[in-house]
């Protein structure tokens, strides 16, 4: 991805809008008693599209915004989302998966890592109340819901950033065949 001023501005706007939507709308919608948390999906999608360094920076800022707006312990969400953004970017850089469902696997893995990492950090910071085994159910439900939502979230992020992404070979080929001026038949 070309990281110029316009791309960075668009990433900032995307992060702000996504954060506000997450905090004011998505988190207030509960499916099977579990509030929706799209943060790992959004950060993983951005990391997967833009690479490890922009992904990590985006994750850090997104997490810091969430921690600040919700008056949570600063650093917890930003640490987890930094790792998520970096990891998703590295998957793209090392393996460059071409399969159309790759974002689903990345989204599911990102949600699982985020949920487990936040749980682990909470235990490290000290949980005084007895923890229910239902926390496992909540984590699993979040992973299932986010797996189902991974593709639309990825498609939305991709659409926002499409101007700055390298040309998709399939799209390039399609354009070559459909553009009249480039077709050898049109010269006749």
């Amino acid at each position, binding site marked *: 991805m070309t990281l110029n001023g316009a791309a960075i501005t668009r990433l900032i706007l995307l992060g702000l809008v996504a954060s*506000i*939507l*997450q*905090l*004011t*709308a*998505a*988190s*207030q*919608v*509960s*499916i099977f*008693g*579990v*509030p*929706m*948390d799209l*943060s790992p999906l959004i950060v993983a999608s951005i990391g997967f599209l833009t690479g*490890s*360094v922009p992904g*990590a*920076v985006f994750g*850090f800022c997104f*997490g*810091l915004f969430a*921690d*600040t*707006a*919700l*008056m*949570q*312990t*600063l*650093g*917890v969400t*930003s*640490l987890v989302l*930094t*790792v998520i953004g*970096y990891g998703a970017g590295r998957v793209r850089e090392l393996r460059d998966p071409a399969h159309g469902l790759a974002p689903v696997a990345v989204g599911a893995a990102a949600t699982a890592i985020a949920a487990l990492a*936040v*749980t682990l950090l*909470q235990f490290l*910071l000290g*949980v*005084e*109340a*007895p*923890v*229910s*085994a*239902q*926390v*496992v159910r*909540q*984590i699993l439900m979040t992973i299932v819901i986010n797996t189902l939502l991974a593709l639309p979230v990825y498609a939305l992020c991709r659409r926002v950033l499409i101007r700055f992404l390298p040309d998709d070979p399939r799209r390039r080929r399609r354009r070559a065949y459909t553009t009249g001026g480039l077709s050898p038949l049109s010269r006749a």
Partner: protein
Amino acid sequence: MHDKVVRRRRAVLALLVALSLFLLTAYFGESAGGGLHATQRGALEVLAPIQEGANKALKPARDLFGWFGDTLDAQDERDRLQRERDQLRSEVAQLQVQNRELEQLKGLQEINTAGGLQQYAPVASRVYQRSPSTWYQTVTINKGSSDGVKVDDPVVNGQGLVGKVKSVSHGNAVVMLLTDQDFGVSALAPRRGEPGSITPIPGAGGDLLFDLVDNAEEIRTGDLVVTAGTTSQRLPSVYPRSILIGQVKRIDRGDGDLDRRIHVKPAADLLHLDIVQVLTKPDANLQADATPTAP
């Protein structure tokens, strides 16, 4: 060239992780009046109008999702309500008999009932933001210190106790819900007058534990649980007496009485909070008690 790129990439990651750890350590170590907390409150003040506007604009979308969920739950709800109605009919007959006796005791209990919550100077506010995390069960409301809201003020809605104020800025406040891991309140099962303590069960979504009950075997499923209020002037409670917390929904019997776990379902629907009230003078009744009465 490749080595340089790799080094730069690793440096960025290390920097961000170190920054996160520094923030985490500093925030965790400082008091509520520290610099990072103050920065957070300032940021909340700036972001609040934007988030409140977005919250209002997105309400129809949230309601649409809620409608799907409500439809799925409607059948179970109907069956449950039918059972409850049958039970309530028989209870009403008993209550009508007891009502006459209670009329005579009314005069004695007037001190507890007169005024209701009005004496605690309630401030109505709208919930506009909610934490999605299992570990931080908080909501943000659009009333703050300028409306008289203070840290630790109790928060209620029409159904019962919701939580308490965790942090306040000028025009907004963060409310810690009953189900937050740090929450705790001294409580009472009024049917038998058994005191105890309500604590959350993190991750159990809408499940509370009625703990430290001396005669736990006296508690029955369906018993109501209310706030105990201040029982000792030395250790005043931030919660007024007799605010409904919830209802005993299940009792896990262990090997002995000490292993008995009493599960309480909160009376307030914490997943669908819209309007809540902050009791800005929760100790109003204590002050009234302390004021010498005119001869």
